């Protein structure tokens, strides 16, 4: 197991290099001139523009810019944005915000998704089952940003229960955006749990459990559920990484000063260093949580071995 983890961690290095280069190239390919955009309506003198270009290596060809960037990374330098602020600073300040948002989302995803899925799976064909089916289909088919605006309007303006913007009310301000961020995954978790439970209820070992004279609550709650949750838990685990990346949309809608919002702003300003740094971090989280899932999988299912 230890060797497996070490190998997987080593494999993340080429992936991160590849991913960061791709992102770098995409930012490079953005139309427009970042320096001119930075200047806005007030024209900068040619000299100042040239100085900025040199400082951010903007006149170098793409590959050289990238090499210089990675060279900086290897020395722990993530670069600076146009206001001269270290990207690492931004990350340090904003990571906790996004992490909190993702945690709230995972909590909703797990609790609501699991409960809905389990109840639907136990009572297949019931009213509740159909309700879950319809609701999840609806959620899956509506784009997140639409859902976000609708939630903002309904629960922020129409019925002002939650704040619509910012994080000034502590954990409370994370609830609505967290729910929106979780919505899609929540629907998947509910569906997956239902299917998995229904499938496992048909298994022979469930019949054995009943033949042992165990209570129905034990037959379902212990024997069946334990097996049914294996794919669900792994899905949720892998989803943590996606949720952090998904925060770009949610944080923008709800004006939450996290990493996602920073990416959005930096793309608009064409601040390559910020975008590349944060998105590469997202990629890393994604890979990392997938690794966690693989380890988790082996712990949950004794039949899985990575040797």
């Amino acid at each position, binding site marked *: 197991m230890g060797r497996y983890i070490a190998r997987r961690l080593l494999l993340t290095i080429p992936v991160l290099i590849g991913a960061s280069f791709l992102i770098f190239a995409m930012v490079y390919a953005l139309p427009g001139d970042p320096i001119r955009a930075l200047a806005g309506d007030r024209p900068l003198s040619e000299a100042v523009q040239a100085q900025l270009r040199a400082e951010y290596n903007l006149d170098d060809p793409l590959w050289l810019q990238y090499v210089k960037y990675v060279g900086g990374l290897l020395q722990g330098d993530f670069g600076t944005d146009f206001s001269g602020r270290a990207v690492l600073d931004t990350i340090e300040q904003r990571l906790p915000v996004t992490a909190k948002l993702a945690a709230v989302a995972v909590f909703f995803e797990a609790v609501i998704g699991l409960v809905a899925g389990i109840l639907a799976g136990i009572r297949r064909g019931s009213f509740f089952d159909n309700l879950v089916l319809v609701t999840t289909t609806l959620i899956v088919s509506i784009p997140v940003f639409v859902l976000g605006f609708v939630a903002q309007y309904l629960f922020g303006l129409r019925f002002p229960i939650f704040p619509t913007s910012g994080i000034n009310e502590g954990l409370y301000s994370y609830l609505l955006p967290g729910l929106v961020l979780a919505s899609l995954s929540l629907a998947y978790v509910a569906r997956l749990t239902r299917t998995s439970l229904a499938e496992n209820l048909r298994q*022979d070992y469930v*019949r054995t459990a*009943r033949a*042992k*004279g165990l209570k129905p609550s034990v037959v379902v709650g212990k024997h069946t559920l*334990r097996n049914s949750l294996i794919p669900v838990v792994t899905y949720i685990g892998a989803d943590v990484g996606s949720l952090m990346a998904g925060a770009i949309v949610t944080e923008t809608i709800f004006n939450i000063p996290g990493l996602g919002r920073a990416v959005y702003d930096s793309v608009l300003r064409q601040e390559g260093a910020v975008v590349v740094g944060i998105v590469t971090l997202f990629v890393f989280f994604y890979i990392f949580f997938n690794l966690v899932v693989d380890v988790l999988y082996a712990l*949950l*299912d004794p*039949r899985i071995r990575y040797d």
Partner: protein
Amino acid sequence: MTTSDPVLEVEDLSVEFRTPKGVVRAVNEISYQVGTGETLAILGESGSGKSVSVQAVMGILDSPPGYVTGGRVLFEGRDLLTASAEEQRAVRGPGISMIFQDALSALNPVFTVGHQIAEMFRAHRGTSRKEAREAAIELLDRVHIPAARRRAGSFPHQFSGGMRQRVMIAMALALDPKVLIADEPTTALDVTVQAQIMELLQELQRDTGMGLLLITHDLGVVNEVADRVVVMYAGRVVETGTVDEVFTDPTHPYTEGLMASVPAVEAKGTRLRPIVGTPPDLARIPPGCAFHPRCPRRVLENAPPGKDCDDDVPLLLPVGAPGRASACHYREEVLHA
């Protein structure tokens, strides 16, 4: 072996499956008894309702779509079908327990075998975790699993097929059941292992005096271990009697065919011959005797009143020695043929 005081009595049990394609009458008014220390074998082609009948007895029928539509299942004189769910559960395990054909799928893949055996004690007797575990280890030892203490911590997939079936047996015997139902316990195993498992079952039966209800396709095994036989066809009992009687002198054409289709058993028919035709679709059981389309002895023309094979359903009626019965209009003729 005694056939006195039956522990388990099944009376006129009927089971049907209500499927979208129609009602499947898988078990029709079957009756049998299992006495203390006795081995009763249920024989019959695939799909004849053997498994469904014992699932109904165990109360583990998949419902829906399966429903018991009539009859009684008496355990120590008490009808389990009308008992409360709580009472039924109290019988499963300490009263009647069951082992299945495929131990790999019948055991839960995510719990250790020790845990799954110990669970019997914990659930029914409230035994402490530690004591239950010790008892489980003892049981593994009793079914001759080497290094039982260490193996208790293993998962089902880490055992061979034969060892897994031993685990299953250990689990079923944990609470000293009065009756053990074994539904094709050796079918999934290779021949030498089959013999070992049957030997183990017999050994345990001798030690505990439990009744054994054995479903198998292996007539050789039946001949060797069973006291009495129930032959099923299309959800009905077509013949019952002691093994010797049924094997040497069948009173139903289907049993005759069964004996003639298997090399290891010496029956009246000498040539080896499979039964022609296929078992009926249980959603469309033929009128009259369900076996008549395949029966070499059927009488369709000029039959005596009430004995028309494609019209009159034959009842299971006594024939020959006391305790024997056959559901053939012409059982006397078959017996003396």
